[in-house]
């Protein structure tokens, strides 16, 4: 069990926040005691699959399940697309985003390109705050070495993805999306594919990312390009007055 003071959420969402991440082997009593002692305004507890005892007990403390997160991984040794997707590959290109392109990405995020994360779907926060949280997150990750890649189809920019090199051949695909209001919505796989191709070009052996059950199309898309589920977590939240 690990408790983190998520101080960045004060800037992002305007609330004090603690995130408690449970492990499969945690003692139930210890987790409940820790959950009860949390004093910030926005509380997040992550419970691994199989620990339904924790899932049920924590809900008795006023927490509610807001999403289930799949942590997924893909081996990069072989990159092959199914025949349905393969015909698009020759017309897909990607490049590191320029400063101007990063601004477009941030505009897309502010405009609501992400609508299914737990903050966007939480009435306590709503879309505007969730979008600003993503913008801050992107800025922080760029400072920590992540890079934004732009995906183009036949020379037209259609979306973006954010990739981070964790070293020793391990890459992390943070998130990505197609741009809004374009006609390429069927190419949802393309931004995910860009991360695979770029990570492999940069010497990656595996890439990991996370997807939420609140975005089933993204879950399906990532599985369709070869990701495999590694870990499943219930995410529970609670809003309360600061203690």
């Amino acid at each position, binding site marked *: 069990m690990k408790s983190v003071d998520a101080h960045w959420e004060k800037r992002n969402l305007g609330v004090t926040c603690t995130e408690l991440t449970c492990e499969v082997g945690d003692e139930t009593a210890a987790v409940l005691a820790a959950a009860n002692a949390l004093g910030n305004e926005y509380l997040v507890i992550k419970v691994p699959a199989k620990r339904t005892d924790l899932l049920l007990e924590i809900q008795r403390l006023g927490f509610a399940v807001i999403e289930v997160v799949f942590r997924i991984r893909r081996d990069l040794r072989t990159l092959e697309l199914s025949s349905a*997707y393969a015909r*698009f590959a020759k017309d897909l290109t990607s490049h590191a985003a320029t400063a101007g392109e990063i601004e477009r990405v941030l505009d897309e995020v502010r405009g609501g390109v992400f609508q299914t994360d737990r903050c966007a779907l939480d009435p306590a926060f709503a879309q505007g705050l969730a979008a600003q949280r993503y913008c801050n997150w992107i800025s922080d990750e760029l400072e920590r070495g992540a890079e934004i890649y732009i995906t183009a189809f036949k020379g037209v920019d259609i979306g973006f993805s954010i990739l981070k090199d964790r070293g020793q051949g391990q890459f992390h695909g943070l998130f990505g999306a197609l741009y809004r209001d374009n006609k*390429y919505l069927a190419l*949802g796989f393309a931004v995910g594919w860009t991360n695979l191709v770029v990570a492999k070009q940069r010497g990656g052996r595996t890439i990991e990312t996370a997807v939420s059950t609140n975005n089933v*199309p993204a879950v399906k*898309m990532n599985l*369709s390009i070869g990701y495999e589920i590694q870990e499943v977590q219930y995410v529970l939240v609670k809003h309360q007055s600061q203690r």
Partner: protein
Amino acid sequence: MDNLTKYNTAFKESFEVDDAALNASLAYQSIATWDSVGHMKMIAVLEDAFSITMDTEDIIDFSSYDKGKSILQKYGVAV
């Protein structure tokens, strides 16, 4: 099996809808199952059913039940 039946069967199999859903309002993302993965599945079923290979632009433009009928005409398939 006539072409309309093949066309409708592709939609029903790909998106798990019944006949009542097969109308002008059926479009990309109008139902949960017609997402990007469902779209490619439907295209593969249609290509198999009509023994055709569609161009990428046509796959992208295939945005609705009605639009698909006009696109298939380019491949000699009258629905």
